[in-house]
């Protein structure tokens, strides 16, 4: 991918959004490019700086998949060194404690697994619906279909949902490595439906019903359903809103929280989806964070999104630091005030 393959790349963990995103992007890019890196000032500005358990889970997963030597992989460590070897496919089990996100672990290792020498089957235990991470619904319905369209063969099954704080979620992902085709996602295409699903576990049904009622009042739903999850793994509630179009699907999830009424959960989720519906760009904020690495694997592509998020900008910075590709973000001609076109060229 680049000439300076052996020298250790130095990255400042406090740049950009300053959290775990830069770590996950760097791990993924390092595995892909084979270039070692050293990340300093990890989560420097946070109240508990350094690596937390969920970050450590990502580092360990990457070390296994990327056959890497790792320094400083400890709780609270603010600096790690990562020296990758050959990516290997196979059977992996990853565990994320403290109900940390399984999806962030997947995000870290998936690009590498798509480039591995053999198919993989991975199981990840932990949370599937976390506050500050993509939910498994989002990955399954918004992200993976686009990846499939690019030619990737990735199957994900959610065996158990895992909600904060009890965790206990379990997902299985099968990955068949193969080349990816570039993606150009500039239009949503025709609307094919707008659904609301209320997920409930060990909680009274009326919570889901009240959420669906608000969703029906705020959004032109084409379908709505309540889904009761098997009991025994701690209470959980989520309102999943799914806006489907010919070219793209957007998922917004409102997570139930102790002390937050069902109405508030639903109102917040609806507000977020309505802003997506209003701005008209096909790629929402969270999807834009996920798409750059697949585009890189495909050797190029572009998409139109709303205002670029700090996660997206962090990803761009890390990609540039690795010299992996050129990413440009510019106002889109169709709607230069609100739309931005993100293009990646290798």
């Amino acid at each position, binding site marked *: 991918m680049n000439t300076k393959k052996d020298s250790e790349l130095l990255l400042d963990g406090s740049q950009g959004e300053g959290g775990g995103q830069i770590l996950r992007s760097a791990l993924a890019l390092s595995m892909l490019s084979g270039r070692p890196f050293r990340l300093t000032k990890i989560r420097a500005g946070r109240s*508990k700086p*350094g690596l*937390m*358990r*969920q970050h*450590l889970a990502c580092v*360990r997963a990457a070390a296994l998949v990327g056959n890497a030597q*790792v320094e400083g*992989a*400890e*709780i*609270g460590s603010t600096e790690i060194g990562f020296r990758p070897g050959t990516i290997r496919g196979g059977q992996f089990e990853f*565990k*994320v*404690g*403290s*109900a*940390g996100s399984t999806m962030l672990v997947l995000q870290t290792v998936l690009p590498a697994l798509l480039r591995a020498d053999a198919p993989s089957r991975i199981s990840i*235990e*932990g949370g599937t619906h976390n506050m500050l991470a993509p939910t498994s619904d989002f990955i399954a319905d918004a992200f993976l279909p686009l990846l499939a369209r690019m030619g990737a063969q990735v199957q994900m099954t959610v065996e158990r949902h*895992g909600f*904060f*704080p*009890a*965790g*206990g979620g379990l997902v299985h992902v099968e990955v068949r490595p193969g080349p990816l085709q570039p993606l150009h996602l500039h239009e949503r295409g025709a609307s094919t439906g707008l659904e609301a699903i209320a997920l409930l*576990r*060990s*909680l009274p049904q009326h919570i889901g019903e009240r959420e669906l009622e608000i969703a029906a009042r705020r959004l032109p739903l084409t379908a709505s359903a309540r889904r009761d999850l098997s*009991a025994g*793994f*701690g*209470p959980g509630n989520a309102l999943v809103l799914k806006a489907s179009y010919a070219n793209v699907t957007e998922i917004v999830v409102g997570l139930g*929280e*102790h*002390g937050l009424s069902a109405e508030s959960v639903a109102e917040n989720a609806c507000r977020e989806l309505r802003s997506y519906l209003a701005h008209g760009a096909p790629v929402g904020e969270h999807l834009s964070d996920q798409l750059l690495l697949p585009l890189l694997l495909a050797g190029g592509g572009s998409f139109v999104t709303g205002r670029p998020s700090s996660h997206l900008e962090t990803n761009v910075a890390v990609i540039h630091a690795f010299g992996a590709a050129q990413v440009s973000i510019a106002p889109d001609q169709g709607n230069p005030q609100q739309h931005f076109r993100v293009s990646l060229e290798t």
Partner: protein
Amino acid sequence: MQIKPLVVIGFVGTVLDAATGPARWERWRPTVAIGMYEDLAVARLELLLDERRFTKLAATLRHDLAQVSPETQVQIHDFHLADPWDFEQVFAALHEFARSYPFDVEREDYLVHISTGTHVAQICWFLLTEARFFPARLLQTSPPPKQRTGDCGSYAVIDLDLARYDRIAQRFARERADTASFLKSGIATLSPAFNRMIEQIERVAVRSRAPMLLLGPTGAGKSMLARNLFELKRSRHDLKGRFVEVNCATLRGDGAGSALFGHVRGAFTGAQGERAGLLKSADGGLLFLDEIGELGLDEQAMLLRAIEDKRFPPLGGDREVSSDFQLIAGTNRDLAEAVLQGRFREDLYARLNLWTFYLPGLKERAEDIEPNLDFELERFARLNSERITFNREARERYLRFAMSVDATWPGNFRDLGASVTRMATLASQGRITVEVVDEETARLGRLWGHSRRGVAGNGHDSLLQAVLGDAIGEIDRFDRVQLCEVLRVCAAARSASDAGRTLFQASREKRTSSNDADRLRKYLKRFGLEFAQVQAAAKALPSLK
């Protein structure tokens, strides 16, 4: 990944951990919380629980911990306590557990969870951990301020090895520096008697503001000790004022009272203005009166009053001045004798004689010569910004001399300081060589000349020298000591009989009759001396009068 796996050992809280149904996730359960902290990765959790009574609870905890912390292995130990509030029972049971548990501190890190179990259990955990039966740190988990789902509260790891805490360690270090070592100016003295005395002085200084009396020969370090005591007390906020040092030998005549107690304008001719006086300057501080035996009787009376009332009138004034100071007095005289001779007030002596410490001379603290040598070298370096070192042989040779009988050190630490300063100044390129040491020991020999062969270094051996001349070299050192004392008595006696009575007093009291004068004459004869000859020689030596 070099970090050692973390193992937590603790009781299951049969109250705090016992919640069932989905609502249990809304409760703070300390044992489950251990698996929930995002910055605490526990490899293994050893739970102590009475399994027969709490089978269901054990199963729930196992299940929930596997969920929140899939990477944690949970082991349950059946632990039966008939009465968990019985200290002896709990201690014995935990002690037994600690002895049988296969601790592997090389490969694992241990935490003892103290937030579950009875208070008695907590105490036992603490005691057993502090005694290192559990080679562990303590883990204290605390609930969130408000019960909220998912909030696992906070935790703290407490290491009972206090040396690991910077602030505590610093405090200990400061404490140590503040006390004994501080009083010794940081010199690591070895003499056990001296070190013990310094510890006593420190204890007295910290607890009392009564006057102190420091005895000891000149140069033994009275003044430095007084200053260090002042600094110690000031650092502890016992004293706020100044350190005032006065050598009473320099206060003679009319000026003495005025210097000490101050005067008002016109108190005597030439008293143009007011003068506060040294006692007033020391208000709130420490007054060190060195050579207090030299103070005049009038001043002694005023000083006593000033100590007792903390008030005194300045010369020529009737309005009293108040001054509250800590007094330390120093002397190399025998004050008790001065009292007998009427030269020192008995009441003042009694007042000063509460805390009396004798600072031995350098000669009596031979083992402290080396640390003091290093101290003097450092002091020289500090004052002159030049680090001087001995080469090894030179250092050995100097120390051998310094600790030998030939080195009398009449000026004590002052002599040592001067000696080091001379050598350091003469050293070329910062190295004190054997040559420099040899020159210095020869110089010291000359300086101490007359006192070199003596016992007390106070001039009596000059009498020995005078009566014996060159023959002194033929007399064993063993005999010289005795002879020296005999001559001293002879010199002071009115007659041979008088001298004999003094010399043989103890045996005289036991026997009915004796001829002490004859016994003395026979003794002197052995050295070829006559009583009259000794008295004549003594008269010719002015220093003995």
